């Protein structure tokens, strides 16, 4: 366990030192602070738009840190041969994978947490000072829940990034594949909805079966996306919430298992 923690610590520090990490954090921070002013351009309920910009900004921040750094840091280890320092020590490769995963997860959670605090302060300010006909109640508790599930989603994406890094040396290839998986995963629910609507009647059965296969195979990221529930204060189904949590954890564990299985058999030369 101690070995895993020390790899996690090193990964965390390495990530923090990346200049691009700081750049993204500052950019998203400014976006969050400016969200209320941007929202002022809209009609009616500006708080809804403030929350949309805020939560989407947090998603973007998490996405960048999770996908970019997970693929970049492992490729860097391979490229600069620093991985030999690790694998020559009595550390199993699965411990390296798990350590990387934990370090990157802490880094992403840290970045999203900083963003979330800025978002809450901004939202509270605009909520208190909003001059609109009907000032809606903000579902603070559900926002907190959305934050927790966003972190879980990002951990899953880090596992995706590590999975692709386990068999390719190119950061760009791993990043592109991870981005593709993210894009498919974020749209599974949307495609399902479209196929079930009138538009879906014209789609061939082969395509529908292909989609069913994809629905089983790819991670359904919409399950971990609680933005709409938080913004519109929609009713919460505790059962679904628990199952989604389990789904996220199980899928992440599965990817990490695959990654360590592949990485174990990989020639490092």
């Amino acid at each position: 366990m101690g070995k895993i923690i020390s790899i996690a610590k090193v990964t965390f520090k390495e990530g923090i030192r990346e200049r691009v990490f700081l750049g993204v954090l500052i950019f998203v921070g400014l976006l969050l602070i400016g969200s209320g002013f941007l929202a002022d351009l809209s009609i009616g309920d500006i708080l809804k738009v403030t929350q949309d910009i805020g939560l989407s900004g947090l998603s973007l921040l998490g996405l960048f840190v999770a996908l970019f750094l997970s693929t970049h840091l492992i490729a860097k280890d391979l490229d600069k041969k620093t991985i030999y320092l690790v694998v020559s020590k009595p550390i199993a490769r699965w411990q390296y994978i798990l350590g990387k995963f934990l370090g990157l997860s802490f880094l992403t959670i840290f970045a999203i947490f900083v963003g979330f605090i800025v978002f809450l302060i901004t939202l509270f300010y605009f909520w208190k000072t909003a001059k609109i006909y009907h000032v809606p109640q903000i579902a603070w508790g559900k926002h907190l829940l959305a934050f927790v599930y966003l972190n879980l989603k990002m951990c899953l994406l880090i596992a995706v990034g590590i999975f692709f890094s386990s068999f390719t040396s190119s950061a760009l290839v791993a990043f592109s594949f991870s981005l593709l998986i993210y894009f498919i995963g974020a749209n599974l629910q949307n495609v399902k909805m479209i196929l079930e609507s009138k538009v879906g009647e014209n789609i061939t059965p082969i395509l529908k079966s292909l989609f069913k296969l994809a629905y089983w195979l790819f991670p359904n990221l919409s399950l971990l996306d609680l933005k709409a529930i938080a913004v519109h204060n929609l009713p919460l189904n505790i059962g679904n919430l628990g199952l989604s949590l389990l789904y996220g954890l199980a899928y992440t564990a599965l990817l990490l298992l695959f990654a360590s299985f592949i990485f174990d058999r990989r020639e490092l030369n």
Partner: protein
Amino acid sequence: MRCLIGLICLFLSAWINTKVEWNLKEWTTSPLPRPESALLLSAEFSPLSSDYFLMKAAIFYSGMAKFKKTESLWLSKALYLASYLDPYYFEPYWMAGVSLPWEGRLQEAKKILKRGLNYLNNRWEIPFYLGFISFYFEHDNKVAANYFLMASKLPNAPTYLPLLASRLAVKGRETRIAIAFLQEQLKMTKEKKIKSRLKKRLKALQAIAFLERAVERYKEIYGHLPLELNSLIKQNIISAIPEDPYGGSFYLTEDGRIWSTSNLR
């Protein structure tokens, strides 16, 4: 040399900036994506896309004095798109209910609002708008009464709604109900330009209500409808015919209603 190039670049960019201006109309009426494509492209950021298209529609609506058929169609498509991308967002329904019927887009407005009934089933405004369309534009009091009744049972519905539903059968109240409807909508927006549009419509309807009352008075005194609106002035019932803010002139229809040559558009 470097300073010179820098200065030239600065002047060039400043000059271009004064020459080129984006045409707001072109920006707003640019072709809209299919709702399904927009949903897939925006993935988890679809609420943000919804905000964007609604903002576009609002800028377009508040910036136009008169709508061509293609323009009102564009507006209805943009609002449908905004409601499709974030079905729990109330504002697109609000805008559809308040703008589209007056531009002759009844079916489009009803399509958007009926979809909204499935998602926002605790907002009284949506059945209220549907009822208003049935009542004022389609003269289908039975359907309208049902919608008003549906609206009256939802949280925060105005207390006059059940009364409104029961009074629908009474003739000649359309204008006054439309005025109440617009006054309700005026409270809901802070956007100055949209407010001024609603006020303009309200002013026209108030003028119609004023003339309707004068015609009723004329009928009470003489037992029949006046032949033309000028008769009201001749008989000293009113001193002048109010102006139509849309530039048309008011006239008396055969069944005693007041309407304008501008069609209030």
